[in-house]
């Protein structure tokens, strides 16, 4: 059976937690390792042993033949030693076919990047880096609890380029409390001045259970209104376009051919295996996810050989919901030929209001315009109910 399986490898560690972040990640003090960030390195080896065991499990369960993309996310993967991360890549390539075209990405904190580390990552097999830039403006970074010096981003990206990385991306966040339109423009311009091939830009989401969530709830922090955030999206989209970055998903822009293949797998309903605590997988219409805490993960994988917490089998309706929800986010859009006349009539109103591309509509597809991308969830609801 010649099937493909993408890999996501979760590194659940950070030196410190940012106020807006609700990802499944833990700081040394939360893991009772004291306050020294280097404590992470000490446990990384044994943690990655567990990940390797899970990769064996993935082979057993899926019997997939090849791996088109591998993505190390976190947490802060660059806290770990490149040679340790390399063991994971080796574990994958020894069980699955991994060709030189395989996209192998690592998320990087600009502060933890050195030329030596970059060389090590190249050697380990990585060929793409996604930098957490977030903003070029110090007070905005401070609001986000990010500690890096904006100048580090430029240094890190250039160093990555010098180390032989061709595919470089930065993540930006807009709509941070206190961020002005000029602040945002400065971040966008700064990102575009870097030697990169890809940009992700996300409106800040206030998640319950985070420090920011609590501050907003208590009224200590006021989130900017949605109209202003929409204006920021439009500003960024215009500038990215002018600089040759085209949107291919509503929060992602790339130079031609530099789209992130791994993320496209998520949006197109492909199969992937997420290894590590709390990681989600999707294999042939079934979603399952691991236990969240690193300690529980270790427990489960060592005693049962399987870290899964729960699973769901997607019925036809759920698959259809997900397809609409995900594919409409992409520039490739989605065909509406199978929709009921009522749904099509509803969509025609969106077409008339300029939320859908006219030319794509003529071809039987729904493709969101710039305005349409900003209300994508609403259009999804229009289609689904």
């Amino acid at each position: 059976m010649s099937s493909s399986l993408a890999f996501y490898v979760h590194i659940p560690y950070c030196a410190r937690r940012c106020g807006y972040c609700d990802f499944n990640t833990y700081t040394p003090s939360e893991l009772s390792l004291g306050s020294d960030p280097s404590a992470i390195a000490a446990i990384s080896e044994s943690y990655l042993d567990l990940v390797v065991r899970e990769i064996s499990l993935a082979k057993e369960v899926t019997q997939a033949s090849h791996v088109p993309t591998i993505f190390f996310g976190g947490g802060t993967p660059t806290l770990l030693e490149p040679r340790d991360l390399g063991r994971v890549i080796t574990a994958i390539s020894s069980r699955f076919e991994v060709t030189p075209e395989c996209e192998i990405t690592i998320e990087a904190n600009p502060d933890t990047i050195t030329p030596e580390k970059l060389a090590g990552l190249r050697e380990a097999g990585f060929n793409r880096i996604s930098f957490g830039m977030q903003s070029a403006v110090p007070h905005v970074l401070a609001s986000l609890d990010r500690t890096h010096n904006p100048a580090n981003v430029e240094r890190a990206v250039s160093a990555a380029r010098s180390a032989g990385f061709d595919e470089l991306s930065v993540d930006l966040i807009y709509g941070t409390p206190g961020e002005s339109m000029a602040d945002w423009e400065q971040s966008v311009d700064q990102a575009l001045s870097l030697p990169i091939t890809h940009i992700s830009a996300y409106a800040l989401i206030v998640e319950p259970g985070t420090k920011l969530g609590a501050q907003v709830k208590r009224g200590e922090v006021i989130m900017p209104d949605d109209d202003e955030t929409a204006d920021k999206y439009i500003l960024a989209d215009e500038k990215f376009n002018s600089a040759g970055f085209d949107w291919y998903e509503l929060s992602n822009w790339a130079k031609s051919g530099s789209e992130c293949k791994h993320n496209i797998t998520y949006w197109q309903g492909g199969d992937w295996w997420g290894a590590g605590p709390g990681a989600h997988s999707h294999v042939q219409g079934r979603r399952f996810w691991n236990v969240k805490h690193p300690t529980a993960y270790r427990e489960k994988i060592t005693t049962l050989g399987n870290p899964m917490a729960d699973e769901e089998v997607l019925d036809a309706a759920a698959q259809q919901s997900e397809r609409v929800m995900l594919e409409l986010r992409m520039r490739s859009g989605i065909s509406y030929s199978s929709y009921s006349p009522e749904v099509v009539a509803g969509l025609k109103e969106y077409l008339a209001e300029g939320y859908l591309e006219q030319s794509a509509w003529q071809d039987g597809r729904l493709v969101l315009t710039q305005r349409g991308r900003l209300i994508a969830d609403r259009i999804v609801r229009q289609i689904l109910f």
Partner: protein
Amino acid sequence: MPAIPLANAPQPAQTNPAQIRNFCIIAHIDHGKSTLADRMLGITEVVEQRNMRAQYLDRMDIERERGITIKSQAVRLPWRSGIDGQEYILNMIDTPGHVDFTYEVSRSLAACEGAVLLVDCAQGIEAQTLANLYLAMENNLTIIPVLNKIDLPAAQPDKFAEELAKLIGCQPEDVLRVSGKTGVGVEELLDQIVAQIPAPVGDANAPTRALIFDSVYDSYRGVVTYVRVVDGKLTPRDHIQMFSTGVRHEALEVGVISPEPLVSKGLGVGEVGYVITGVKDVRQSRVGDTITMHNNPAKQALAGYKDPRPMVFSGLFPLDGADFPLLREALDKLQLNDAALVYEPESSAALGFGFRCGFLGLLHMEIVRERLERESNLSLISTAPNVVYSVTTGDGKEMTVTNPSEYPDGKIEKVEEPIVRATVLAPSEFIGTIMELCQERRGILLGMDYLSEDRVEIRYTLPLAEIVFDFFDQLKSRTRGYASLDYEPVGEAEADLVKVDILLQGEKVDAFSAIVHKDKAYAYGTMMTGKLRELIPRQQFEIPIQAAIGGRIIARESIRAIRKDVLAKCYGGDISRKRKLLEKQKEGKKRMKMVGRVEVPQEAFVAALTTDADIDKAKAKAKE
């Protein structure tokens, strides 16, 4: 020992009218009528101590909770006078205590020869009490003035004795002082009832005439009709006939309430009791009607019968459209016990299927709604209440409008609206405030009198429509709760009225149309459009909200198109979570009503139809 053991007391149908005293208690809501009644039940020993419970006579939960009596009852109390040592039968007829039930009160009064005017001696007389007092005086009832709650530290018996004496024309020292709570003065009051109130007079040999002063539906027994026999007698198996309808029934059971039902051999002249005929609907046994005998009918009915006439109309719609049959069933059931409630199916583009309901007044409306929600577990939206208009169109046609949606579109010759005579009692410091409110509401001052040094009675004529629109709440809040209000219909008057429609994206929303005075149309329009702008969520297009009189726009707002409705991130682990959120939103969409292309959340309808006072009330309730 003035109490008489029940078994030894004069029996129904065998009691000499000279031994009977029929009286009622006129009192304001919280002036202690129920406590005094409880005390009378105890002292006369018709209720044994161990069976006593607070507010014994108030049957319904709503009555007990709100401290008001909706339906009257009549209790037979044997009493040996402490003055002459003779045995008497006292029939205490309870009266409803609210403005909406004036007619029912008048029928209860017509069944009595005397009234106890009961006033809380810490508060003084209230407007509704005053109105009922005047009603009793018009009926030539003997009034026994009584100050209650003399045990209270805040009691001012001398001051209020003066006030009562002035009102009914007696001496302040004639005013009795009692405490229903401690029992002080209650025996003396019973003796005075015997001494002062005349015995009933009637002709035992004349054809039977009995006044229906109440009729209550009981799910086991059918309708229980409360009567006062004026002439002749009522006995079981009699074929009785209703004067107003000519309908015949057999009296299956005749009895008295003491205070539990007690089957009797009949009721004679002057006696008060009940008749059960097996009918299932109180409309067949109407308050104010006269019962006579089919084979020997009286020539003339007792005076004063009126059909109940609804004064206030409102649409009631189930929040969940699927509950419509349940609402119909609930209304049908309620009507068995409420001859004044009328309703017919109504369909609203915005609110779906419901009923247009007519009520005696605002309290009646509130009680009906609360009973529907409570007893049938329904959630209801009610449209803003309105009164009944007589409209004459350009071509001379006359029509009655009980629903703004029926208001004719073309040329209108004239519109007439119901007018009431309102009486406000309040401390004199609020005269200015009250006059200001009444002027704002198109009131015309009729007169003003000082009841005492610092309390006034202010009389106005006002359009009923103005009272229906949060007048009472305004009056209470502007007078810090001190003012009381009573009103009675006094006819119709022509007025400069218009219908204001509310349009969403050019589509009329029937639930928000209102008939208002021309000078207030703009205020209504801006209030409603402003409210809706806040309540309706932004959608993918701009939504103009307009208020219009016919084709003329008088106010406008607009809800700008939504700019952002998307979550920026959607990666591996987000997908399940996002799909589940969608499923939840699907549920939410079911609670949306479509007005043309505009999605309006049900909460927006509820909130837009709710006055600020309602919101305050709901908040206060939530706090309890």
